[in-house]
């Protein structure tokens, strides 16, 4: 079940533009890995190289040592959802999946199973031309799940989903990772993966500018932790005893320059009741924006 993805010196040049520059990273099983970066950072090109759709200028991308095109049954080994993936507008959703299942030599019942999994059973006989963006994403996800693969590579899967859809996607991705699958999810919006990802790869202008666990990235957040407690004085004393500090940030609320995990531990040791414990607003997002600053447009909005 467990498959490890390895990107090794992956590079792609389009003419004189370097889209992806010497990217080396490991994506581990049983975890959700967020692949972050502003639009145009090279995420899609990287994923397409990983999946054999774009030929790397140099470097390799492998699944447990095998390139995608060398996989015996790719659909059973890697599930994919890519942004530019299209549907014939005149073909019914169910037929779209039937075509893919036929090509991959998968049993017909898998089509019904994945339709149920993504909640599209009632709309399965409609032509995809009439589908909303959110329904297309669900259909794409259904296609990714057809072969019940141990690896999922999803490019901006939250695009077009409504808030309920995004929440559903989050718990869905978590459950896939908890089953031991390797889940790689790209996004240009940090909050989308913030609550789901265990690991992050941050790409900026084709270069990997950060890789590690989300917790590590959080602790690098300059914003520290916002904590609310009915007893701020005791918490402050406990933090100062541990060599840290705290500043007032409103009634019963403190701001601490430590990671939330550490603040929680210290509070527990001191027996202080907490009502809220969270990364300070903008903290993680600020790290992300700083990391990718060079690539962002001048107005700062990397949409």
């Amino acid at each position, binding site marked *: 079940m467990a498959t490890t993805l390895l990107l090794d010196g992956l590079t792609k040049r389009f003419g004189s533009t370097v889209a992806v520059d010497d990217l080396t990273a490991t994506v581990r099983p049983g975890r959700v890995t967020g692949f972050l970066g502003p639009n145009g950072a090279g995420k899609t090109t990287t994923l397409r190289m990983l999946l054999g*759709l774009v030929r790397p200028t140099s470097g390799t991308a492998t699944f447990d040592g095998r390139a995608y095109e060398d996989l015996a049954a790719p659909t059973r080994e890697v599930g994919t959802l890519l942004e530019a993936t299209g549907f014939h507008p005149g073909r019914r959703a169910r037929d779209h999946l039937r075509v893919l299942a036929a*090509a991959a030599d998968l049993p017909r019942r898998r089509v019904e199973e994945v339709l149920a999994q993504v909640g599209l059973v009632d709309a399965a006989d409609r032509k995809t031309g009439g589908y909303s963006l959110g329904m297309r994403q669900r259909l794409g996800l259904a296609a990714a799940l057809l072969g019940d693969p141990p690896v999922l590579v999803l490019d901006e899967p939250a695009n077009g989903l409504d808030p309920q859809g995004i929440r559903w996607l989050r718990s869905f991705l978590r459950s896939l990772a908890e089953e031991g699958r390797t889940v790689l999810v790209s996004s240009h919006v940090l909050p989308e993966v913030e609550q789901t990802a265990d690991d992050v790869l941050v790409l900026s202008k084709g270069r990997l500018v950060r890789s590690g666990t989300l917790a590590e990235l959080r602790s690098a957040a300059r914003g520290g932790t916002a904590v609310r407690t009915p007893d701020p004085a005791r918490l402050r004393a406990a933090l100062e005893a541990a060599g840290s500090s705290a500043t007032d940030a409103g009634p019963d609320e403190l701001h601490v320059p430590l990671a939330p995990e550490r603040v929680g531990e210290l509070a527990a040791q001191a027996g202080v009741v907490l009502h809220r414990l969270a990364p300070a607003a903008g903290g993680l997002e600020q790290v992300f924006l700083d990391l990718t600053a060079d690539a962002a447009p001048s107005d700062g909005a990397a949409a």
Partner: protein
Amino acid sequence: MRALVRAEVLKLRTVALPLWLLLTTLALVLLGVLATILTAGLEGAPLQRDDPQLLARAVASASGGNVVVLVLGILALTQEFRFGTATPSFLVTPRRGRVLGAKLIAVSGLGLVFAVASVVVALVASLALLTARGDSTSWDSVGEVLLGVVLVMVLYGPIGVAVGALVRNQIAAVVGALAWTFIVEQLLVALLPSVGQWTPGGATAAVLQLGDLATAGGEDLLPVWAGALLLVAYAVVLSVLAARLTLRRDLT
């Protein structure tokens, strides 16, 4: 490979296009039969009403859908790029040549279905019309011509797929193919048969034994067997070129 062919057949069966193209084909076949039989015997017409070849000439109209099948082949491929279904196709089957091969087979099969329907319609319409008019209904060379019809209809689809793979842009491929078959080839075959006989259209006319109708001076085209081989060669060479040249491109 069988699974892939099944998938390609399913792709064709789950969209409305083939049905519309089949109806177009049958309409063209009927028009061809009517034109051939109703003009027979008129002043300056190449055929007389008692010509023993009249039935064979009329049922040769069953190949009238060859251009339609050509367009079907082009669309079967270019729509994958136009609608972005090429990405999932190549993700399921990273060996892109196998996808192309399966598509060639599936489109040939559909061409065979079109051919059978066309032959039935052409035969029934021709016999009905000729009998009603009291014209010759001799079966002279009808068998060979119908074999030729089937061959042409089966081969034009794959040629279309290959053209689509080489050009990739749907509008350019369709417009280019239509301009080629209706203008360039017709002129070459009619006015310069020594060159025109080597074009797919020239080979088609040879297979259908329509040389004297296609050329301005009634010159001979290639023998039937050579025309058939030439059509097969076009389908094979264009497909191999497509697999080698364009299919390997990055899919961004």
